[in-house]
C-alpha cells in the first residue's frame, strides 16, 4: 500500500517538478495513518451505530419505539447527540481517587479494544484487507482482547469507591477465567485450518456455506455456541455483566466516571463486542464468504484483475461487517432478555461447563480430523468436497527421521500463498 501511495504522490507532484521515491517515508506514514484512521473510525462509528442499535432493539423488545427524532427518521443521530451531551458534562473525579490512573484507565480499555482490530481481516483472497497481516492473528486477537481488563481494574481500583472495587474484582476474576475456554474454542478452527492466520482460516471457508467451519463437524458446531457464551462473558455483556451490575453495584467499575471518560469505556465495550463477533465470523461463519459464493460466480476475484478483485473484496467487507453486526445484535438481544447470573454461577459456568465442553470438543475435532481428514459434515452427506486442510508441519516430519533433503515447508514461504499448500495437499487426501 505504501508504494502505491508513493506512486500516487509521485504522479500528483510530478507537475510541480517533485518526485517521490517508491519507498519514501511519506508513503509509509500515510499508509499507516489510513489504517489507523479506518480502525479508530470503525470502533467509534461502530459504537455510534451499536448504541443506536441497542436502544432501538431494546426499545422494540420492550414495546417501545426507542429514539425517533434526532437526525430525522429513526433517531439515527441519537448517539451523536448523546455524545455531545457527554462531552459537555463535567469531568468529575472523586476526592480520594488516584488521579493519574483514574484518568488513564478509560484510554487503556479503549486502546486494547482498538488494538484487536489491527490483526482482524475485513476481506480475504490473495490480497486481504487487513491492517497488519499476522501469522498468529487469532492468537493475537484473543490475547489483546484480554488486555481490556486492565482498564477496568485500574478504573475500579483508582475510583476510591467500594462499588468500583467490587466491579473490578469481579471483572478480573471473570475475564481471566473466561480466557481459557475462549482460547480453547478458538483453537478448534485453528486446528481444522492448520493455521492461526486469520486470512488463511477465512479463505479456507470459501464456497458454499457448507464449508463454514461451524458446519465442519458436530464438534465445531457445539464449539461455536460455547464460543458465543464465552465471548459474551469476556466482553462483559449480560447475562455476564457482573462488573457493572446496576442492581447490585450501582454501575460497577465505572460508577465514578462521567462525561467523555465514561463514554470511552462504552466505546471500548462496543468495540470489543464487534471484534469478538468478527472473530466468530472468521473462525466459524465463513468470514468474508457469503453463504453462496456470489463474488466468485460473477468472477469478482483477484485472478480476473485488480478491479474485480477490489469489488470482490468490497463484497467480502460487507459480509464481514454484516456478520459482525448480526453478532452484536444477538448479544443485544440476549442482554434485554435474560436476568443476570451471580458471580459464583458465572465462574461455575466457565469452569464446570464451558471449559470441559470446549476441551471435549477440541478432542472431538481432533478425532474427526484424524479419521475423516478434509471431510466436512455436509461433505459426508453429499459428494466429498475438495480438501483444503493444511498440515505443513507434519508433511515435513518424516524428513527429520528418514530421508533428508526436501525442506517442504521452508520452501513454501509466506503463509498466505495458498497455491503451494493446495498442491501439497492434493496428494494427501485419504
Amino acid at each position, binding site marked *: 500500500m505504501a508504494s502505491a501511495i508513493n506512486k500516487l504522490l509521485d504522479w500528483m507532484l510530478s507537475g510541480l517538478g517533485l518526485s517521490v521515491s517508491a519507498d519514501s517515508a511519506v508513503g509509509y506514514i500515510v499508509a499507516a495513518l489510513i489504517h489507523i484512521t479506518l480502525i479508530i473510525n470503525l470502533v467509534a462509528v461502530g459504537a455510534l451505530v451499536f448504541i443506536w442499535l441497542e436502544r432501538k432493539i*431494546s426499545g422494540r*423488545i*420492550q*414495546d*417501545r419505539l426507542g429514539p425517533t427524532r434526532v437526525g430525522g427518521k429513526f433517531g439515527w443521530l441519537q448517539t451523536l447527540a448523546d455524545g455531545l451531551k457527554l462531552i459537555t458534562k463535567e469531568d468529575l473525579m472523586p476526592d480520594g481517587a488516584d488521579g493519574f490512573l483514574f484518568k488513564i484507565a478509560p484510554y487503556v480499555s479503549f486502546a486494547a479494544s482498538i488494538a484487536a482490530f489491527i490483526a482482524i481481516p475485513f476481506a480475504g483472497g490473495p490480497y486481504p484487507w487487513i491492517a497488519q497481516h499476522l501469522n498468529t492473528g487469532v492468537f493475537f486477537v484473543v490475547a489483546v482482547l484480554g488486555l481490556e481488563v486492565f482498564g477496568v481494574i485500574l478504573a475500579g481500583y483508582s475510583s476510591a469507591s*467500594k*462499588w468500583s472495587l*467490587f466491579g473490578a*474484582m*469481579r471483572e478480573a476474576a471473570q475475564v481471566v477465567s473466561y480466557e481459557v475456554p475462549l482460547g480453547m474454542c478458538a483453537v478448534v478452527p485453528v486446528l481444522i485450518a492448520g493455521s492461526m492466520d486469520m486470512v488463511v482460516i477465512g479463505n479456507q471457508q470459501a464456497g458454499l456455506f457448507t464449508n463454514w467451519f461451524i458446519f465442519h463437524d458436530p464438534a465445531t458446531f457445539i464449539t461455536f455456541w460455547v464460543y458465543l457464551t464465552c465471548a459474551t462473558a469476556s466482553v462483559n455483556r*449480560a*447475562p455476564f*455483566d*457482573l462488573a457493572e*451490575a*446496576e*442492581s*447490585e*453495584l*450501582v454501575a460497577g467499575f465505572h460508577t465514578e466516571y462521567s462525561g467523555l471518560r465514561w463514554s470511552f469505556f462504552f466505546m471500548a465495550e462496543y468495540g470489543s463486542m464487534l471484534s469478538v463477533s468478527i472473530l466468530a465470523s472468521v473462525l466459524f461463519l465463513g468470514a468474508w464468504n457469503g453463504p453462496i459464493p456470489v463474488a466468485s460466480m460473477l468472477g469478482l476475484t483477484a485472478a480476473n484483475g485488480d478491479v474485480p478483485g477490489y469489488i470482490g473484496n468490497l463484497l467480502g467487507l460487507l459480509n464481514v461487517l454484516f456478520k459482525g453486526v448480526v453478532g452484536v445484535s444477538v448479544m443485544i438481544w440476549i442482554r*434485554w*432478555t*435474560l*436476568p*443476570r*447470573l*451471580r*458471580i*459464583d*454461577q458465572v465462574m461455575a459456568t466457565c469452569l464446570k461447563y464451558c471449559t470441559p465442553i470446549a476441551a471435549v470438543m477440541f478432542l472431538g475435532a481432533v478425532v474427526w480430523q484424524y479419521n475423516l481428514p478434509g471431510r466436512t459434515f455436509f461433505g459426508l452427506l453429499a459428494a466429498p468436497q475438495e480438501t483444503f486442510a493444511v498440515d505443513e508441519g507434519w508433511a515435513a516430519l518424516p524428513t527429520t527421521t528418514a530421508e533428508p533433503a526436501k525442506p517442504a515447508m521452508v520452501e513454501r514461504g509466506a503463509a498466505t500463498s495458498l497455491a503451494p499448500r493446495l498442491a501439497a495437499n492434493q496428494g494427501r487426501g485419504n
Partner: protein
Amino acid sequence: MSTVDDPRTIEFDVRTDEMLVNMGPQHPSTHGVLRLVLRTDGEVVSEVTPHLGYLHRCAEKIGENLTPRQFIPYTDRMDYLAGMNMNLGWALAIEKLMKYEPPEKGRHLRVIISEMGRIASHLVGMGAYGLDLGTFSPFLYAFRERERILDLFEEVCGARLTYSYITVGGATADLPPGWLEKCEAFLTQLEPIIVEYHTLLTTNSIFIKRTAAIGVMSAATAIDYGTSGPVLRGSGVDHDLRRDGEEIYTAMYDGYAFEVIVEKNGHYPKDHQYPAVPQEAILGDCWHRFYVRMLEVMQSIDLVRQGIDRYSRASGSYGEPMKLNQKLPKGEAYLETEAPRGQMGFYIVSNGEAIPWRARARSSSFCNLSVASELCRDCLIADVPAIVGSLDIVMGEIDR
C-alpha cells in the same frame, strides 16, 4: 453474625478485610430510599442492617389533625403502588369505628377496585424484581399492563396514582358506564400475558438459579418476624385476611369463590395451569415468594370477574361517603386488611370529635423488611437485591 469463637467460622488463608458498604439510599435496587448497610467480606455479606426514615412524612401525626375523609389522600401516599387498597384499609377502620356497613353494590365495587389494585401492585413487584435480577424488559412489560389498569382507574376517579377513590362510607363516585366491559376486556387480554411472564421469568433457568433456595425463610421465622402477605404465604403459612380476617373485612368477600394461595402438599391451588415448582426451589425461598405473587394475580383476575358479575346484578346505591367533618363516635378501632404487600392495619382512637385523637398505621412492608437481615446472613452481594426484592417493599409504606 458469627463470632470468632464459633468453631464453624470459616478461616480464610487469604484474609480479606471486612468492609462496610452502604447500599442506598441512592442505589438502583433499593426500591426508593432504603439504606442497607452491608458488612461484607469480599463478596460474602455477613450482616445487613436496614436504615429507615428517608421517606418519613409524619403521616400518622397528620392523621391526628385531619378528619378521616381528609386523611384519605395521605393513605394513598403510604403504599403508593396500591393506593386503592390503602384507601380501603383506612375506610374500613373508620367504618368499624362508626359501625357502618356499606351497601351491597359498594361492597362489590370495593372488591373489584381493590383486586385491580392488587394486580397493578403485583405487576410492579414482578417487573421490579426482574430489574433487581438484572433483566430490564419484564419491568416495562409489567408497566405496560399496569398502565392499562391506571387508565381504568383514571376513568373511575380521575387520578392515576393517588386515587382517594374508596372512602369512608363507600366510594367517591360510582363506576362510570361502560367501565365494566373495558375492565373485562382488559382481564381477558391480561391472562395470556401472565403466561408469557411465566416464560420470561418464572421458568427461566437463570431466574431459577438466582432465586431458588436463596433467602429461605421457614414458616416459624416468617411468623416470628410478623411478616404477612405473599412473603408469609411464600413460606407455606396458610393465612390470608381475606378469609381469616375480621368480620367486617371478610364480609366484603362474602360469597366469593376464593382459595388462599399457599403451597399444600407440594402443590399450589389450581397450579396445573402454571409452570411446576422447580426442583431446586425450597419452600420459603425467593422463588416461592415470587410465584405466590404471580398466582395471586391470576386469583385477583378471577375475583374481579366475580365482582363484575355481582356488581352488575346488584342494585341500589354504591354507598354514601361520610361527611367531611362528621363527628366520630367515641372509642377506638383497629382493623387489618389484606393489602398486596401484606396486612395493612389502621388504628384509630376518637374522643368524639371530628378529628381522631390518635391515628396509627401498621405497615406490612415494615415487618417484611425486618426479616431481611435474617435472610441476608452469609449470602452474596448479588443475593441482597434478590432477597430484598422478593420481599417487595415500598418505602412510602414503611416510613409513612
